[in-house]
């Protein structure tokens, strides 16, 4: 009896020791003085996250609350925060999550509902309506908000002015195509320019565009090609896909993508933002498509030897299958949301309150962040701050986004697979790829109960 009591006592001591170690960190946090308080923001690993860290120094100076911006590589960014949210983790107080993930986060209760706060603080009046709808609202048009637009972004283009303005190139282009070489005024013109410059025998190629389908890069390029030719991904309100995703306009868009892809350098089947910028800075392409957030590297002489000869333009308009002209750019960027499971929601809200101020937004723009604050966006100071800010402003007027419903990632995976098989792998036709995708998407929406 005595022995067994001793055994139980030893066991209890063991567990007590483990528990003391496990909870030691939490106790220490709770006992910290106010000036040592901190919040953690989770974002993808890229320059804007560094800018946000720098920007938040101002918040720390004002409040004494330290801000840690934790960065995860893009390849696993969405998986990582989804896994944490499924586990109801309080590892982060704020997530700067992808725009298309807002539906999943809202429906599954991972983000705090900010609707009242946004109205109270007037965010719905000071930030551009389009940014609020795409980065913060779910369902679209439902006037319920779960984020504050943090980083506005869209696909845009960089081009080599020295090559485009070279008299010999201009003359040769006019002789071949019958019109002047210049900034593309349509997607057709862009293809002509890519074809004109494409010279693989001499290691020079027509264009750098995305081809990777690991996450959303290929889909983001494909969707804007679909939209400008008059196609659609589907009806975002009724979830109808058949007849829209595989319509004549959509097929034209995907066929165009495949034709344009032939002018990329070898190995562009896995090209995302790094490869696109690398091809441009290596001087092997005359123009490259990328998210605007990656353009600072192109404007910097230290990272781009052609920085002084680099110009920028927004996605051009295009005549679609029905003769109508349309202009669209795929939306990038993210909104900042407060995590439901955070134990420091009050501090997180304090940071959001500070972040939406005009002065903070102006500083955010100065550092290189893409503000969605209407007044700052339209200010001359913002437009003159970088050579690509005017392009950003145009892009913010023409952007459109992917599906934002919780099933967006399954849709993305299916779409990327079928479109990559056709565009990169050359399998089948655009019509076949889109038909297969439409069938599968319909089944996904049906299972999710959208047609009930």
């Amino acid at each position, binding site marked *: 009896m005595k022995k067994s009591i001793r055994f139980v006592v030893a066991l209890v001591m063991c567990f007590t020791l483990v528990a003391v170690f496990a909870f030691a960190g939490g106790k220490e946090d709770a006992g910290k003085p106010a000036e040592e308080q901190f919040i953690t923001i989770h974002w993808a690993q890229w320059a804007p996250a560094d800018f946000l860290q720098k920007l938040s120094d101002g918040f720390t100076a004002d409040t004494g609350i330290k801000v840690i911006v934790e960065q995860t590589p893009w390849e696993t960014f969405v998986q990582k925060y989804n896994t944490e949210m499924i586990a109801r983790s309080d590892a982060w107080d704020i997530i700067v999550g992808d725009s298309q993930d807002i539906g999943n986060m809202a429906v599954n209760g991972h983000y705090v509902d900010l609707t009242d706060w946004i109205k109270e603080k007037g965010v719905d009046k000071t930030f551009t309506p389009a940014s609020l709808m795409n980065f913060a609202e779910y369902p679209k048009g439902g006037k319920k908000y779960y984020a504050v637009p943090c980083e506005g972004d869209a696909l845009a283009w960089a081009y080599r002015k020295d090559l485009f303005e070279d008299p010999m190139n201009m003359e040769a282009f006019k002789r071949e195509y019958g019109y002047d070489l210049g900034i593309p005024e349509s997607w057709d013109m862009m293809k002509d320019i890519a074809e004109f410059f494409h010279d693989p025998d001499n290691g020079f190629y027509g264009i750098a565009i995305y081809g990777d389908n690991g996450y959303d890069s290929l889909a983001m390029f494909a969707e804007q090609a679909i939209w400008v030719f008059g196609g659609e991904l589907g009806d975002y309100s009724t979830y109808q896909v058949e007849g829209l995703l595989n319509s004549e306009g959509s097929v034209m868009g995907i066929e165009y993508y495949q034709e344009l892809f032939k002018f990329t350098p070898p190995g*562009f089947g896995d090209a995302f933002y790094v490869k696109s910028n690398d091809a441009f800075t290596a001087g092997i392409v005359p123009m490259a498509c990328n998210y605007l957030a990656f353009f600072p590297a192109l404007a910097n002489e230290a990272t781009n030897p052609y920085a002084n000869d680099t110009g920028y333009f927004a996605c051009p308009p295009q005549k679609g299958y029905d003769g109508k002209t349309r202009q669209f750019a795929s939306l990038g960027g993210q909104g900042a949301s407060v995590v439901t499971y955070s134990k420091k929601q009050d501090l997180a809200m304090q940071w959001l309150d500070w972040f939406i101020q005009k002065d903070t937004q102006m500083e955010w723009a100065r550092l290189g962040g893409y503000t969605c604050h209407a007044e700052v966006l339209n200010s001359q100071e913002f437009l003159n701050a970088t050579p690509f800010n005017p392009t950003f402003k145009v892009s913010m007027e023409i952007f459109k986004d992917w599906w934002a419903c919780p099933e967006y990632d399954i849709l993305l995976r299916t779409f990327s*697979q079928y479109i990559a098989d056709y565009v990169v792998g050359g399998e089948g036709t655009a019509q076949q790829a889109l038909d297969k995708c439409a069938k599968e998407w319909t089944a996904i929406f049906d299972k999710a109960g959208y047609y009930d």
Partner: protein
Amino acid sequence: MAKNAHETPGVMLEKHYHGMKDKNLMRLFILPTLVLLIAINVFPLIWSLFLSFTDYSAKMVNVWGKNPAWIGSGNFADILSDPEMWEKFITTAKYVIMTVVGEMILGFGLALLLQLEYRGRGLITTLLVLPMTMSPVIVGLMWKLFYDPNWGMFNFLLGLGRIDWIQDPARNLYSIVIADIWMWTPFVMLLSLAGLGAVPKYLYEAAEIDRASWWFKFTRITLPMVSPILMLALIFRIIEAFKIFDLPMGITGRGAMAPPLLAMHLYNVSFVTWKTSYGSAIGYIMLIMVLAITLVLVKYLNRAKQ
């Protein structure tokens, strides 16, 4: 003789703990490990087995329902009747065969060469072992740079022009096979070296007295004596190659152009599209296949030992 000299360590411990039995003490030490093992290994194994018979997404709890819906063998039927899944099984089998055969031949061949007496043998062995000591993800990323069609060393050194080894579906499986062989041949080589070192010299001396040929000595002495350890290397490499994930993730990524390998597909299903129950079923099919292969090989291993 001193009194303490008669006390075994067990007796000393019993004395130290004032009567706590060795068995109880042993249980106490094992308990934390056992609890962790059950929580981290056994519970997920049982839970995922249950999930494989349901329709469930860990991510969509508020959309598809909080509780997994029981669908019986539906996931298994879907997987086994899907032609695309069979393509993945076949590709994985091809990958396993190519890498394991390559590694076994090269690894054993290198071990035979390293058995010979020459200067710098130790240094060469150390250098050959280096690839195995690297992280597979780093190896994958390094080979991705080698294979780059624009400026990669691989095409340049072999004078192949601008061949795309990463995104071309006709080639990218081989690009991973080459990297795998480069990385894991040293493993087979090391095991083979250990096996070769353990073959008694007197057997060769006796064979030489009988004027046996090199081939005779190799097939009648070396191979039979080394075969148990070679079988062990074979088992390890087949299991590893079957569930390969990190190398292809580093070289080709997980996109549509990546070779259709089972583990990559499992990742995409479970953590990209969050079909948790379907992913669990794929995981169990893989587990059964690996177990079956291992059981057959262990049988041969036991036979080889005898």
